[in-house]
């Protein structure tokens, strides 16, 4: 059905999307590249000029930079691992013929509807707060010292909060995949004496590859830019213990008011995001015959 004229029509129909996305990317990116080679501090706006790669070398040589990179990877990797492992387990559980599956799904999906600042502040204040939080009350009840979540385990706390927000998404996609698996296949395997573990390993898991791929792809896209949860809870601290790359850039722009350095950091982040995207599309894109 792909005639010459329908091809042209198709191009015209795709064009607006491509153009707006290109503009939305290209203009800010060009401006960021320009600023990244300039001296541009909001504290001293009269001092301007070209500084070559100095903003970049400052950024890369900053001890915070490698911390920020490893925190970013930790956050993405940690949340992916938690949501996929627990998402699979919960999906397997919900998929059983249980009573009240409908209302139960409503409970499980709920965290997905909670906006990040609210999710972060519920956890930080109502649960993890060292004086008034619920965990502190439990600790005191057991005669233990309350855990200082945001001070002692800032990264783990942030990962935990973000994982709670994304668990419903992973669970529901994996559940949908699970429900499309035919029960005959599993029953046949069971009759042939396959154990529960090998049924999972050789029938269920291969069936879910696509779903897991989609979860990884979509979540990585959102997790690379995680900002609000850190801003609301640890503010990147203590020190820079929970500073991710986006948060480090934010600190340069807003706290240090150094637009040049923030722009250089932004360009570095874009390059790194593209590397991640490349490997992601390469590695798992083939599972999607999109």
């Amino acid at each position, binding site marked *: 059905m792909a005639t010459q004229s329908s091809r042209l029509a198709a191009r015209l129909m795709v064009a607006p999307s491509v153009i707006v996305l290109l503009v939305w990317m290209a203009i800010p990116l060009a401006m960021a590249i320009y600023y990244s080679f300039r001296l541009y501090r909001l504290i001293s706006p009269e001092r301007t000029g070209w500084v070559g790669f100095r903003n970049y070398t400052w950024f890369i040589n900053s001890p915070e930079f490698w911390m920020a990179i490893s925190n970013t990877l930790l956050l993405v990797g940690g949340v992916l691992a938690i949501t996929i492992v627990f998402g699979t387990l919960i999906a397997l559980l919900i998929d059983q013929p249980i009573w009240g599956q409908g209302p139960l799904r409503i409970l499980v999906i709920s965290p997905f509807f909670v906006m990040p600042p609210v999710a972060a502040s519920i956890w930080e204040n109502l649960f993890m707060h060292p004086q008034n939080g619920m965990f502190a009350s439990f600790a005191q009840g057991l005669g233990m010292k309350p855990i200082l979540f945001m001070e002692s385990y800032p990264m783990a706390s942030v990962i935990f909060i973000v994982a709670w927000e994304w668990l419903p998404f992973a669970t529901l996609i994996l559940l949908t995949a699970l429900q499309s698996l035919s029960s005959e296949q599993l029953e046949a395997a069971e009759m042939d004496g396959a154990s529960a573990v090998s049924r999972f390993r050789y029938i269920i898991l291969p069936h879910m590859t696509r779903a897991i791929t989609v979860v990884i792809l979509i979540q990585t896209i959102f997790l690379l830019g995680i900002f609000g949860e850190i801003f609301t809870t640890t503010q990147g601290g203590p020190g820079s213990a929970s500073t991710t790359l986006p948060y480090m850039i934010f600190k340069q722009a807003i706290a240090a008011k150094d637009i040049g350095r*923030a722009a250089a950091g932004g*360009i570095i982040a874009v390059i790194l995001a593209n590397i991640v995207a490349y490997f992601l599309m390469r590695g798992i894109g083939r599972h999607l015959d999109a």
Partner: protein
Amino acid sequence: MARSLSPRRKMMMTLSAWTVALIIFFPVLWMILTSFKTEVSAVASPPQLFTADWTLDNYAEVWARSDYPRFFWNSVVISVGSTLLGLAIAIPAAWAMAFVPGKRTKDLLMWMLSTKMMPAVAVMIPIYLIFLRTGLIDTRIGLVIALMLMNLPIIIWMLYTYFKEIPAEILEASRMDGASLWGEIVYVLTPMALPGIASTCLLNIILAWNEAFWTIVLTTTKAAPLSAFIASFSAPQGLFYAKLSAASAMAIMPILILGWFSQKQLVRGLTFGAVK
């Protein structure tokens, strides 16, 4: 792959599944309960699940202290507006990619998706400056545009996976019967794609409603939606738990209720082609 279980195992499974679900839901429940407590019982130790002194004062105070209706209306306009604008641009694109795929279609789709990997913070200053100079800053139309662009790749991808499931033979048959391109879209494609468009619409409204970076960066007062409202509310230190919970509940309740009611539709659409 629902299979039959013995009543005892079914009981066990039900019990453990409900336990897990309640644990996941508990923070939301706790926040809602806290919003009806007095400040004293909100921080009582040991925590009280139910208290004797229920009150609506927290809601009254949050309502009195801030212009909630304006924030709410801004959220509605921004999330619905960006969704409709996004659909208008994405539907033709997704249609074309699904039914007239070229050699580069897959690459194009992946490129679109990869634009979303660019950290928002990296382009925060340039976009802020552009919005400042064009007068889009702190306007609803500005946020509609920004959030539309932010979510466009997701919309296109979701629609694309939906449209791909529509068999091309049906379109060919309608063409044989003499349907024009327009007729084909209006009478054949749209009815078949409607469930897909509906769940795309839902997901996008939720994403836009919960967006808390651009809404805070690009607004000050006039166009600020509920995500900015809640950020301003939790800013002062020494906040009060019951009032914070009430404000949080007011910020998430509209989308939570929408989500609960449309949950089935949404989940069906969330798969992004993960399920064949």
